[in-house]
């Protein structure tokens, strides 16, 4: 093992066109150390010992104009950063290589030997002596321009993308029409970014020409966000076909032709898609990549297959990682239907992926290591090519296991606090798989290998359809392709409908509810990136927001507890057939407490939480009351003959106001309420009408129960009626207070829409749409 790994280093060195003398370094270095009488025994110098190591392993990237920082060519360059070089080589952060050494043998392994690392450490400790400059190795020759010669097709991003100076890393896609009039075979893709320090990696794929148009420019910038399965060969989106992967590039990759005369298919009329990862560098950068494609004259004699284990990056593996879980693992196997040669392994997961391992168990029971990544880093999505293709006979079982870390101990966790994470294509979702590129030993076996792979893919899709994952992913794609969301401004109005305050930044909000003391607003906020809908609380004065929920399930219908310390809300669970009513502290602390599980088809809607501790919600046609504590058996307040919804308790708890369509249209009624006497559901108890015409909800009792508000229909005007609750309920003639600005209020502001004194109303004012680049262009 030792001998062969050393041999692999020799090959690497020679391939990098470094002079053969560099490859002799360990022997030369030791010999010089032994005979170096002018210095202490074992003294190492830059010229004789360190430069050969760096020139063979580091300067491909660490030289002027390349992606890596710090040129490591001259003595002064290296001396300045010597301590850092010693530290990062010791920790094996550099050179970057994420596959475990000795677990599969890879070509071009970027790795220093233990001896080389010790030597660098010793040199730094000894004060970094230069030695004799005359003994410096020659600098490796690097190709100028195209590495692989003139490409057959050169494509350039039509417009530059501006990478901002700061902020989080950016993942963004750019589609470039290929303009190809015929199908091609691609032997190599050479990628030349213009902002070398900002571009970390790029994956290449092709899709049906124009298929990405709907996604582009949504945020007013070139390109589009979202991974959308590009280059993953997912193919569950018929609209993208034909599509396929074309490899990738990461910092440090040397462009190369596929081995054995192989080639990727590239269909005519398609668009090339670059899926790029940018690191903001601290100053604005501008990226306009150039891509060179190298075609084969004819179809390759042999077709290779790219087979993922598990299929479709774990679409059907049941990925559902609980917050804090450090050991969630998926495992999958595939058995080779024919004899194959495996060329490469490429692992993939997102931020929570931690450890990935693949082995091959041969029919004779022997186990061959394939690849092991002990500390997965999303930023280094390398394709690991085997030094020698691995010959694996029919019946060999490939086992893959992938472990995830969804705790805060994983510094790459995108969520703090961690949140439930499901399978999905966005980088904050998870997936996982290892792709193996392979060719059958016998040409006549190709069809069997392809058929076996397709069967696995189909089985995964069927399972993904059954468990809801495919629906969720397609929903997400549909939303991503839809018009940009309209933003709203949380706004407080007075009784004349005049704006008295705006709260927090504009966002995608729903169902705002004022706290009983009027100082806070609970609202459903939809994250623009993840599209997750969570309960937030915003301070009316400062605008400061606190997330109350941060789970994958969409949340809805927040209601305040009478003391303003808790919020109850609905969670619409995604892949299960039930929804929950839960509560949590209004400052976001502590855990959520599930109060009730509903298996009704549609999620229930919470509308009130009375001073007596009774919750009101409706589900389908029926309105229910349920104690927040103690016996939580919901009591039906209507029998389902008509729709009854939007129930609100009077402040003294003796009456319930609600909307009902018993007259043929929704109107607001009020009736006496007592949980004890309500057991025999009481559509018999007829409500007294409050609204004279149609009304759609938005019911609110003033704190003294002397005034009742609701929204009239179709004007959607805030309307007030003077009411009496003693001795019996009595409503005066309703009068319109004001009509909120267009697009506000409707449809479901069902909780506390006003302050207890009835002086302030919370509405969500729709802002004008964000202009897209296309529409801006048309205006200019």
């Amino acid at each position, binding site marked *: 093992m030792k001998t062969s790994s050393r041999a692999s280093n020799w090959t690497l060195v020679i391939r990098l066109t470094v002079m053969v003398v560099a490859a002799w370094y360990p022997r030369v270095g030791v010999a010089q150390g032994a005979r170096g009488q002018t210095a202490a025994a074992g003294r190492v110098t830059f010229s004789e010992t360190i430069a050969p190591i760096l020139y063979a392993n580091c300067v491909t990237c660490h030289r002027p104009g390349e992606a890596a920082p710090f040129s490591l060519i001259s003595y002064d360059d290296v001396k300045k950063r010597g301590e850092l070089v010693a530290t990062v080589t010791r920790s094996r952060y550099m050179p970057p290589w994420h596959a475990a050494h000795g677990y599969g043998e890879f070509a071009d392994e970027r790795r220093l030997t233990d001896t080389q690392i010790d030597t660098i450490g010793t040199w730094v400790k000894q004060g970094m002596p230069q030695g004799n400059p005359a003994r410096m190795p020659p600098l490796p020759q690097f190709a100028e321009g195209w590495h692989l010669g003139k490409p057959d097709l050169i494509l350039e991003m039509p417009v530059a993308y501006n990478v*901002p100076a700061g902020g989080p890393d950016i993942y963004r896609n750019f589609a470039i029409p290929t303009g190809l009039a015929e199908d091609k075979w691609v032997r190599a893709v050479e990628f030349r970014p213009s902002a070398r320090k900002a571009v970390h990696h790029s994956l290449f794929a092709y899709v049906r020409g124009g298929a990405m148009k709907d996604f582009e420019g949504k945020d007013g910038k070139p390109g589009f966000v979202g991974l959308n399965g590009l280059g993953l060969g997912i193919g569950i989106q018929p609209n993208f076909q034909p599509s396929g992967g074309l490899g990738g590039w990461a910092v440090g990759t040397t462009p190369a032709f596929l081995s054995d005369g192989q080639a990727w298919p590239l269909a005519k009329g398609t668009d090339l898609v670059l899926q790029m990862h940018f690191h*903001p560098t601290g100053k604005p950068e501008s990226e306009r990549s150039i891509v060179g494609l190298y075609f084969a004259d004819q179809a390759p004699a042999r077709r290779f297959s790219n087979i993922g284990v598990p299929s479709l990056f774990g679409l059907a593996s049941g990925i559902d990682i609980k917050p804090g879980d450090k050991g969630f693992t998926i495992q999958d196997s595939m058995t080779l239907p024919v004899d194959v040669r495996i060329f490469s392994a490429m692992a993939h997961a997102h931020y929570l992926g931690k450890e990935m391992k693949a082995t091959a168990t041969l029919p004779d029971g022997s186990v061959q290591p394939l690849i092991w990544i002990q500390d997965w880093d999303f930023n280094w999505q390398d394709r690991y090519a085997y030094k020698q293709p691995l010959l694996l006979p029919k019946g060999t079982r490939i086992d893959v296991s992938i472990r995830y870390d969804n705790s805060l101990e994983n510094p790459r966790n*995108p969520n703090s606090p961690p949140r439930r994470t499901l399978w999905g294509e966005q980088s904050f979702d998870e997936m996982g798989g290892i792709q193996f590129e392979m060719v059958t030993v016998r040409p006549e076996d190709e069809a069997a290998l392809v058929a076996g792979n397709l069967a696995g893919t189909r089985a995964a899709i069927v399972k993904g359809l059954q468990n809801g994952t495919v629906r969720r992913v397609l929903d997400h794609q549909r939303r991503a392709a839809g018009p940009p969301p309209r933003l709203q401004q949380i706004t407080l109005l007075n009784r004349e409908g005049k704006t008295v305050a705006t709260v927090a930044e504009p966002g995608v909000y729903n169902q705002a509810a004022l706290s009983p003391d009027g100082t806070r607003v609970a609202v459903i906020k939809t994250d623009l990136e993840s599209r997750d809908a969570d309960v937030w609380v915003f301070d009316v004065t400062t605008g400061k927001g606190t997330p109350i929920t941060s789970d994958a399930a969409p949340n809805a219908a927040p209601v305040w507890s009478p003391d303003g310390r808790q919020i109850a809300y609905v969670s619409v669970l995604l892949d299960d057939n039930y929804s929950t009513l839960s509560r949590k502290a209004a400052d976001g602390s502590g855990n959520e407490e599930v109060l009730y599980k509903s298996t009704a088809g549609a999620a229930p809607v919470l509308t009130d939480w009375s001073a007596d501790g009774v919750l009101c919600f409706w589900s389908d046609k029926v309105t229910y009351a349920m104690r927040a504590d103690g016996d939580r058996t919901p009591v039906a307040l209507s029998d389902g003959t008509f729709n009854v919804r939007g129930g609100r308790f009077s402040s003294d708890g003796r009456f319930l106001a609600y909307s009902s369509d018993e007259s043929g249209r929704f109107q607001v009624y009020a009736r006496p309420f007592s949980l004890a006497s309500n057991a025999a559901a009481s559509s018999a108890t007829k409500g007294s009408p409050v609204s004279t015409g149609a009304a759609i909800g938005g019911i609110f009792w003033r704190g003294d129960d002397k005034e009742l508000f609701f929204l009239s229909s179709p004007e959607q005007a805030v309307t007030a009626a003077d009411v009496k609750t003693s001795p019996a309920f009595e409503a005066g003639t309703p009068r319109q207070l004001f009509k909120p600005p267009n697009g506000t209020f409707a449809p479901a502001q069902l909780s506390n829409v006003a302050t207890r004194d009835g002086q302030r109303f919370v509405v969500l004012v729709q802002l004008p749409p964000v202009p897209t680049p296309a529409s801006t262009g048309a205006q200019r």
Partner: protein
Amino acid sequence: MWGLVTLSASGTPVKIRDVDGRWLTPFQPAARANAIFFISGDCPISNTYAPEIQRLCGQFASQGVGCSLIYEDLPPDVTAARKHLDEYGYRGRGISAAVDGARTIARAARASITPQAVIVDATGAIKYRGRIDNRYAALGKPRPQATTHDLIDALDATLSGTPVPAPETQAVGCAIVPADFFRK
């Protein structure tokens, strides 16, 4: 006691010429406090923090906090520093900058990494030394976003006269090389 290190060996306050030739005394705040940022011309982590340093200095300027950038690895000639200030958008924001060719400021503040921040209060005492935030868990391990903002917390405490919760944190970045290292 930390205040003592801000005096040079001769007992006079440490001062340095900024890139425009004016004297800077980073350990003697003009108002309530100074934030000193030890930075580098080519350390990627140091450069990545440029927008955040500018944001922080803008945010705290109105509260009487001055900002000084101290370059630790550029040639004493200020040309490279001026170019860097322009490229990374530091100009015109009321942030002073100097090249610490002799490492006087780094020694006085006991700074060893770029980027590293030091807070000096109105009395000249060092109240904080360490990272700006925890965006980098280690070299090569950036978080998608920082989850603790150590420098902001320390500035808030300094301004309100309460103890800094963590007065010393580990900065992640590039080692500052002593000036005499390059003497030939």
